[in-house]
């Protein structure tokens, strides 16, 4: 690092460092099946006063199972103990910093948990008639309005259950729009730095994914893009800031190139946190935008879902949105009803999307307000920029433009000197009390570590993370990577052999 000195203010103890997490030991936890004892039970049911017909009276013989499925038989106490112990074998945002690049692992407010638990939201049946769900319809309509304001778009569907489903929805909208104009282009352009879901979603929508190279800056190679754009291109999927954490400063000529050839611009909202209230996708020329509410709007990730991936579009694409959509009843102030857009591509979700996730995001937005959202983006960028500068000189930055809310460091230099790979450094970081950054993504950076501190980590936590990342690198250079390769030694299990697990598949417990 440079000679610049770290202000004392930032080196006080950090609340986001979780090295003090207690562990009872390193023995494995038995499975529920091993804890089962025949005849033991936890269940009880209400008294109904109904006739106690026998199974044979209720189910025709050809359908009736001889015995119920072989589920575990446990006392409630043992089940609670088992699942509680499993939960304590799990790191989470509530424990400490989780600087996982591209995932926006910010604090998940307890306020939003309380909203999702409100009985008058949680106990509505999704098929109830409009007059019984006016609260839900008003909530969803207002959330749609706000998401459109945030993204600079005209209308949105809240149905997609996750980002990948949002991508697929957006691509089907792209397809429907082209078809409405009598066109059937077959290709979608995707930068080589893009997340794997982009090309996978394109394939699911029936498109051929064509890779656009990045230039020396880590941005879309504008000349290459212009060469690839043709009548046969339906559109471009772009993340901005992109997956290297850089803002695509050529976004205006990029959009112009696509639009001139009747192509559409698709915005992958994975990195929206960086530009909330500062830049809007619609104003950059994007026609279709998916958002990850579980990133930008702090709904918890649940160990890998549920998320929510609404898709917002410009005016010209609105008639094609999935439906039904909550819309005001003409002439009846404050009342809403479900409506199907006139040329809708159809349903995406079995009901209305992950409604309780949507309610959490709505509460998060009400809490922050417009200025609060802008403060989120500014602070997320400040944290990332600071952290990146603290690592300069030890880690390399192959694409060294001003980073937004995250940056991609390369540990290739450390590997050359010590033999320690990005994976080893990441595992060693665990022992220092931090969840590792995203590793080996994007694919265009060698030994990539993608770091996203988020705005809810304090300056002291960001500084402590910087010191830990510097320390593990220095240690690797001193000991030839020995400690890093042996890590982690403080977790319930040591380094897991993923390759062996894939060869010797054991996908269920069989005793």
């Amino acid at each position, binding site marked *: 690092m440079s000679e610049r000195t770290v202000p004392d203010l930032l080196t006080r103890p950090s609340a986001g460092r979780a090295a003090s997490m207690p562990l009872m030991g390193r023995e494995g936890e038995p499975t529920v099946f091993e804890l089962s004892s025949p005849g033991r039970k936890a*269940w009880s049911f209400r008294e109904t006063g109904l006739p106690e017909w026998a199974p044979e009276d209720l189910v025709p013989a050809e359908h009736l199972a001889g015995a119920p499925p072989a589920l*575990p038989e446990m006392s409630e106490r043992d089940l609670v103990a088992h699942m509680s112990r499993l939960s304590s074998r799990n790191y989470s945002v509530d424990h400490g910093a989780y600087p996982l690049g591209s995932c926006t692992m*910010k604090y998940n407010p307890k306020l939003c948990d309380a909203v999702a638990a409100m009985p008058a939201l949680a*106990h509505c*049946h999704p098929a109830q008639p409009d007059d019984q769900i006016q609260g839900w319809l008003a909530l969803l309509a207002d959330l749609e309005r706000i998401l459109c304001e945030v993204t600079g778009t005209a209308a949105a569907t809240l149905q997609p259950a996750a980002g990948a489903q949002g991508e697929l929805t957006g691509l089907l909208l792209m397809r429907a729009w082209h078809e409405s104009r009598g066109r059937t282009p077959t290709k979608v352009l995707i930068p080589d730095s893009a997340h794997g879901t982009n090309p996978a979603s394109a394939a699911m929508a029936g498109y051929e*994914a064509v890779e656009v190279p990045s230039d020396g800056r880590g941005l879309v190679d504008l000349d290459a893009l212009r060469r690839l754009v043709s009548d046969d291109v339906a559109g471009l999927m772009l993340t901005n800031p992109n997956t290297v954490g850089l803002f695509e400063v050529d976004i205006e000529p990029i959009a112009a190139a696509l639009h001139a050839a009747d192509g559409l611009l698709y915005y992958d909202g994975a990195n929206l946190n960086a530009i909330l209230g500062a830049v809007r996708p619609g104003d950059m020329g994007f026609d279709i935008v998916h958002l990850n509410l579980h990133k930008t709007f702090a709904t918890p990730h649940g160990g890998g879902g549920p998320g929510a991936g609404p898709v917002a579009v410009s005016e010209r694409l609105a008639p094609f949105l999935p439906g039904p959509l909550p819309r005001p009843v003409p002439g009846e102030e404050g009342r809403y009803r479900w409506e199907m857009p006139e040329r809708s591509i159809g349903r995406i979700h079995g009901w209305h999307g992950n409604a309780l996730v949507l309610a959490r995001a709505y509460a998060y937005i009400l809490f922050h307000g417009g200025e609060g959202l802008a403060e989120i983006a500014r602070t997320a960028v400040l944290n990332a920029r600071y952290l990146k500068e603290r690592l300069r000189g030890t880690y390399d930055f192959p694409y060294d433009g001003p980073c937004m809310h995250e940056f991609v460091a390369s540990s290739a230099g450390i590997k050359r000197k010590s033999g320690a790979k990005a994976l080893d450094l990441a595992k060693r970081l665990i022992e220092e009390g931090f969840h590792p950054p995203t590793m080996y993504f994007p694919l265009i950076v060698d030994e990539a570590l993608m770091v996203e501190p988020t705005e809810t980590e304090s300056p002291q936590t960001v500084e402590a993370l910087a010191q830990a990342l510097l320390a593990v690198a220095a240690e690797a250079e001193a000991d030839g990577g020995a400690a890093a390769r042996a890590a982690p030694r403080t977790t319930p299990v040591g380094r897991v052999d993923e390759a062996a697990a894939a060869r010797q598949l054991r996908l269920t417990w069989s005793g």
Partner: protein
Amino acid sequence: MGSFVPHTTSEIEAMLGFLGLDSLDDLFAHIPEAVRLAGGLAIDPGRSEADVLDRLGALAGRNRPAGPSSGTGQLVCFAGGGAYEHDIPTAVRALAGRSEFVTSYTPYQPELAQGVLQALFEYQTMLCRITGMDVANASLYDGASAAVEGLNLAAAATGRKLVWVSAGVRPAIRAVIRTLCGPRLEIREAPLRDGRTVWPDDLDQPAALLLAHPNHLGVLEDVAGAGELAHAAGALLVAGADPVAAGVLRPVGELGADVAVGEGQPLGTPLAFGGPYVGLFAVKQAPYVRRWLPGRLVGEGQDSEGRKAYVLTLSTREQHIRRAGASSNVCTNQTLIAVTTAIHLAWLGPQGLRELALRCARGARYTRDALLRIRGVEPAATAPTLYEFAVRTPRPAGEVLEKLAEAGFLGGLELTREYPELGEALLVTVTETRTRADIDAYVTAFEKAVA
């Protein structure tokens, strides 16, 4: 206004000073002015936590949720059709709410995620046991996405593009299939006769047959018969299975299904206005599994010292490795809801799951018998049902539901629009939450509503 940003003014100044910047605005200085938002977002100013709760409470108060008859404005629920009111054990609720599960990410770092990985491994095992299958994934978004992925898997495994979908599959799921599979697959529908699917004589080289068991009219299907037809035609049978019905019904895996798909909401998840739910997905062991199984998968392996350890596995199928060649674009799934389902299944155990299914079936039998004694109310299908059934009403079904709502009941789902051949018809659902007193009151209100 509220904020979760911890930075004090002096800390921001210290960080900017370190960076050699004058203001936070300088962080965005490289972004072209033309795309910068001038004037900020037109969104109301933020507010306190208490104010947000008041505002949401007021909005929620405009709903009439399902709930016990004692609650103000609440409706006693006889509606199902893919979303079910069941009692959720307090222990399940408490465990599923543990923030270590709630606020973690997809378990890419297995050493930090043994808890959620093991819980998913237990979920996969339990799902295999209730469906009679060999391999289950770690969940999909919902029942609809599970059906879509089931058809995609069949198309990939057989190299064919035609799929037959039973009209007994819930209409909204069929709509999702049309949207998401439409661009790549040819979808044909097999009609119902007396509530059961009639498959055509000439199946015409299909990739899959898809049915639901029980189906959307509550009717038990001939799964084994469909399996024979599918296999004779070189296709896979994708069967919608119900985790509650699994307490008494023979598992679809025993009846010839190659893929079991379903909705896990009934076990541990509230009605939630339709989500988040969880897509159940399990298959028989087959050569195509390694290449084409969609979604996340947890395997048991070992750590460097030979201790048992769990890990995401077969990631070579997935989008982040295979990109455009992936078996599915699924990335995030519904881990938390899958874990909830697993906890609820373990709370029930074999006898509890059987008891749950029987209690639903008993309530439904009692309700159906009573409704069919009302003049003009007729069965919409005579084939056997379990805990949901369809009845024809002598007055428009929508009108009957309105009158039932006035009397405090969510009386069922209207079937008329989606199944015009049934005439005016309702789908009625009874779960273990309904007592004899609830049902008697409902039947009385129903009789008045159709009079």
